[in-house]
């Protein structure tokens, strides 16, 4: 059984079919990539998997259990974390608070214990505060615990976004264009980070435009174009696939 199974996933916006009968699966422990030209439906796929957008058809299964129809916070609690393309953090909170919120997926905040300030509640908060440091160690950010997130450099903000997602201890991490706007040095660091994340036991599915990143770290790649899957395979195969070359470079004439 695959960790994530996407079956004939479809969404229509009026007359436009943004994602059309897309099927693929992600095996446990791999780094998978979802690529394709602009408007191919990659981010839309993410939104369908994570419950932010209701699909018009098809199914998503995670560890064999259906995710389709669940609200985003329930899917997060099932063990699927994601980042967003744009601001994927809480700008006016500190780095530590950002990660503490990421840990919410594993605990249900309850009002009465908070009001009574029970010992259990206080212990839980302390534990969450301490665990935040562990996660920040992984992304090499534990030196800036008490800095407001909006004051971080762009590269650091991207790392914090990943830390927030990791804080929920997901089994599957979806990264939406993690390398967008990064310098070559920063994207090398990002690739190392994603590799570390995989080694820590988290499966990764990423949407990315930076081919160096995709080809460098992905075990398996799914290519979308106009909402349809046109190819799937190892980076080696994808690089030579005629349809992929046509989509990215245009058709050879004559």
């Amino acid at each position: 059984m695959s960790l994530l199974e996407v079956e004939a996933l479809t969404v229509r916006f009026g007359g436009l079919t943004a994602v059309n009968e897309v099927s693929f699966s992600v095996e446990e422990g791999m780094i998978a990539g979802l690529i394709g030209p602009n408007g191919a439906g990659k981010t839309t796929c993410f939104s369908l998997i994570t419950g932010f957008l209701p699909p018009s058809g098809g199914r998503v299964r995670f560890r064999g259990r259906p995710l389709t129809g669940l609200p985003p916070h329930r899917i997060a609690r099932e063990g699927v974390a994601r980042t967003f393309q744009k601001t994927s953090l809480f700008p006016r909170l500190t780095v530590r608070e950002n990660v503490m919120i990421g840990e919410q997926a594993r605990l249900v905040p309850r009002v009465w214990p908070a009001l009574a300030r029970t010992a259990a509640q206080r212990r839980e908060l302390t534990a969450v505060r301490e665990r935040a440091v562990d996660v920040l160690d992984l992304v090499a950010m534990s030196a800036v615990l008490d800095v407001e997130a909006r004051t971080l450099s762009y590269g650091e903000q991207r790392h914090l976004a990943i830390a927030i997602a990791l804080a929920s201890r997901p089994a599957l991490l979806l990264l939406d264009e993690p390398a967008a706007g990064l310098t070559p040095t920063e994207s090398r660091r990002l690739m190392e980070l994603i590799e570390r994340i995989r080694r820590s036991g988290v499966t990764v599915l990423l949407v990315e435009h930076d081919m160096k990143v995709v080809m460098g770290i992905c075990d398996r790649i799914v290519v979308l174009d106009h909402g349809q899957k046109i190819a799937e395979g190892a980076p080696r195969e994808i690089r030579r696939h005629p349809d992929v070359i046509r989509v990215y470079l245009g058709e050879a004439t004559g």
Partner: protein
Amino acid sequence: MPTARTAAGVGGVAAAVALPLLLSGPYHRHVLVLAGLFVLMALGFDLVLGYLGELSLGHAAFFGIGAYTTALLTRNFGVPFPVDLLLAAAVTGFFGVLIGAPSLRLKGPYFAIVTFGFAEILRLIVLNWTSVTRGPMGLPDIPHIGLGPFRVHTELGYYYLVLGLIGVAILVTRRLLDSTVGHAFLAIRENEELAAAAGIPTFRFKLIAFVIGMIFTGAAGSIYARYVHFVDPTALSFYYTVTVVSMVIVGGQGSIAGTVLGALVFTLVPEYLRVAERARLVIFGAFLMAAIVFMPEGLRGLWRRARQGRPDRVPA
């Protein structure tokens, strides 16, 4: 600096307890009671604006619900204190769920418009349902508070009662903020989509914050009805909503101290500007504009900037 905060808190409480004793005469004490009621209302409002980041334009309606509930319960059924206060809080909370459940699914201007619409509908019902509310004539002769041998009938008595409720409201707010519940509120304010992706049931927590805020406001309305012995539909008027919005924005949203400060300034300054007679509202208007232009983060932000000696705004 928890010790500095504790010291400031103790100082604030001591000042609040001693203040009416230092002032002579019922007028100043009356102004303080009104200020206290506005503080309570503003604390309720700030839970929604400051911690959820949503602007409710229906706040006065919840004050009115609290006031009318107490008026009807005491006049028609002789319900004693504090039962009427608790029931007023419960009824306001119920309306909070009723209004919050549909409107909190909306954001920004849409939420503001729906809450405004709700408040106007409720005001018109109160105005026109004369068999129950006596319409524009209002409900007079609301009895004073009697609790066994104790009777609250002086300005001083009401002042300390309101002060106690403010204490409860601040304690509830502080405890919520200092827990994972408070983190959920802040996460929703900062980035609702990401909050959901982090596993927070965003709608449920928005509703919780909204209902708690409205309960504070309903309690203020209940005490107000007792204090002035009279309610009429103007208690639900948009004027009060605007006043509370200004208090929280000038004071500093998302901060208990800022909210309290803003509510005090907005009650005391216009009241004591009466010496300026006809120029009163002109002066106050200029003050308000200056506050918005020079203190975008409110009095609270000004205080923080002065203490830290660094600009509050950081380039994104």
